[in-house]
């Protein structure tokens, strides 16, 4: 269970190469204009066996993450926009949901990639508002040929100073929970039947470093709280996800990303200098560009072993990193590091309860 230094480095080596090649493959098959080579830092080198492993992964992305209908909240800027661009270029149908600029940004994408112009749509919706979210969700579902979305990416989020916590929690936590509830109800018929196992329905949530540790320099406990909350929601939902045949994961940028959310930290040259120095100090890996998170997303989307996981993505340091699974013999000895998921007693207990929710398919 304990990782020593050597295999920690090996882990980083594998993962950094993986994401690197993944992004190459992604560029190769999708043809995006983003030069991911230049964005990738911290390369350790290649090994033959790793490369073959990675090629398999790239193949998975090419075959699986295509022809899907994907809703992305907060898709009009920052990380959401990077996700939209990448997934559109892989041949998916994209619905961008955002509060203000969804339609403009969808048009922008359609103009930039005219071959995919039919595949992108913008919907105005406010995730904080349950009714608005519901309308946006219905509109997005209608864009799918099957009437059901294949993947939803709940990414809209805000930051604010201390003592404006209520709005942050409503957007970053409740807004995401609204989306999850709507989607899971749709695919499981109000929890009465498991979803179609052949479809690989998925929910991706955008977390943050704050999902793991409070971001002290941000000085916004409400933000920390919302992101830790949504990550724990994802981990806590895993028993349902496993039994109802869908996947839910949180992709957590493990550091500062240059987006509108972090803009207040760098709106003047001095602030930018100070924050850059801070982010490069003490092994933080520097400020990331939104495009750097795409390989992490693709890895989570294409590998079915990710479920109920919170994945820290910081390509400059070479992870995707994922919470470890727990020792089945011990229940919760080390807090925050392990899940309860693997304990036999837990499994038995949950199976019993969930059976009460589910009506058997034959009945």
């Amino acid at each position, binding site marked *: 269970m304990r990782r020593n230094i050597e295999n920690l480095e090996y882990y980083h080596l594998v993962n950094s190469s993986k994401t690197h090649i993944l992004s190459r493959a992604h560029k190769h098959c999708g043809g995006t204009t983003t030069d991911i080579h230049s964005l990738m830092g911290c390369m350790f080198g290649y090994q033959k066996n790793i490369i073959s492993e990675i090629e398999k992964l790239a193949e998975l992305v090419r075959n699986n993450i295509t022809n899907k209908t994907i809703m992305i909240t907060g898709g009009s800027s920052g990380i959401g926009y990077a996700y939209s661009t990448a997934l559109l270029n892989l041949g998916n149908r994209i619905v961008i949901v955002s509060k203000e600029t969804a339609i403009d940004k969808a048009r922008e994408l359609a103009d930039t990639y005219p071959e995919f112009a039919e595949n992108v749509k913008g919907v105005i919706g406010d995730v904080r508002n349950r009714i608005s979210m519901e309308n946006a969700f219905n509109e997005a579902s209608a864009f799918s040929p099957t009437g059901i979305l294949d993947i939803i990416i709940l990414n809209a989020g805000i930051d604010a100073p*201390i*003592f404006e916590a*209520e709005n942050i*929690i409503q957007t970053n*936590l*409740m807004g995401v*929970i609204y989306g999850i509830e709507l989607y*899971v109800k749709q695919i499981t018929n109000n929890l009465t039947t498991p979803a179609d196992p052949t479809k690989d329905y998925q929910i991706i949530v955008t977390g943050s*470093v*704050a999902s*793991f*540790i*409070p*971001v*002290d*320099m941000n*000085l916004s*406990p*409400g933000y*920390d*709280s*919302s*992101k*830790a*909350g949504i*990550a*724990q929601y*994802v*981990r*806590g*939902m*895993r*028993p*349902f996800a496993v039994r109802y045949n869908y996947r839910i994961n949180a992709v957590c940028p*493990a550091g500062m990303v240059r987006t509108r959310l972090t803009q207040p930290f760098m709106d003047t040259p001095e602030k930018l200098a*100070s924050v850059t120095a*801070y982010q490069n*100090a*003490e*092994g*933080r890996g520097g400020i990331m560009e939104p495009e750097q998170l795409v390989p992490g997303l693709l890895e989570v989307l294409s590998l079915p072993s990710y479920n109920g996981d919170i994945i*820290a993505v910081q390509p400059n340091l070479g992870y995707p*990193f994922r919470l470890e699974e727990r020792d089945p013999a*011990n*229940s*919760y*000895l080390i*807090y*925050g*590091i392990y*899940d*309860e*998921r693997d304990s*036999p*007693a*837990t499994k038995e*207990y*949950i199976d*019993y*309860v969930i059976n009460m929710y589910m009506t058997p398919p034959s009945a």
Partner: protein
Amino acid sequence: MLFSKKNKRIWFYAGAIIAIFIVFYLLYRLYSYLFYSRATQNLIQNASIKPGSKTVMITGGSSGIGYAYSNALLTLGYKVVVVSKKTAKEKVKELQEKHPNLKDNIIGIIADVRNKKSMESAFKEASAFSPTGVLDVIILNAGINGEIFKDAENIIQTNLVGPIYGIELYVNQITNNLSRPADKDKGYQIIVTGSLASFVPVDMNLSPAYDASKAGIGQYVRGIRPFADRYNFRINAVCPAGMVYTNLTAPFIDTPEKKAGAYLYQNSEGRGGIMNPEQIVPGMLEVLTNKTYNGDLLAVQPNLGFIHRIEHRDENKAYIEYGKYDERDSYATKKFIDYAIFSKYMKNVNNNQN
């Protein structure tokens, strides 16, 4: 063969070794009995104050863990304000009858923590009960559980936003809207009730929104620490690391079969069994009296013998092991925060730390 004369000596030695082990074990038990009882006495001695010299507000103080807290703090000399949605007055009367000599030291206020206005008026009323007009300790303990897809909004509002209202009101009061640090000698503090779910999702509970709310409030406590350090107050979360007999867990044990199931589950795989609310009190007293706790989450499970706390991080490394360490001790973080807080909030205060 085994019992032949030749082996007699071996059997004698084996018996002697076992006897020595038994003696050592009994000595160990005696030692731990003495040690732990002394530790408890020390805790009570440290937590006892001059009667009526400090005032504490406890939300959700009318049942479960909050009631155990109210009872304990009242007997230790605190003036207690019990805040709850329905039964605050009745429960206060019950406590007054239990401790007739302390009956002037406790009042009950009806309020709903989910509602900002209701919380605000309760907070004002509670402050007025304090001789100084300022509460010395607030314990934000009111919480609910609920079902997936049904109660998420209510759970988040009660367990997460409710305590945040309380924290904001209190911190604004003691720091004059963040414009100056609080009086250091007063030892103002906030205690939040977390849960096992603050650390790991409680899978058997099957309520991801509960997990989210408790992890959220845990991270809030850790995240507000830079402020707490610089504004001279303390904030900690006491997290019962397991199931406690309360109203919240009653649905798990409302029939004999369910009770048997929950009991078996909680006693398996090193969970330590179901706790009584009174068993959480020593953990709370530890936080209350030990000034080194700040921005900490404490897992309390006396049946397993721990009070666990998130470790401090190596000051040269940022975030290598997620969830285990805080950023708090990093040099660059300290510098960055000092600058931000003293330039933005405490403009008129001299920064003595640099």
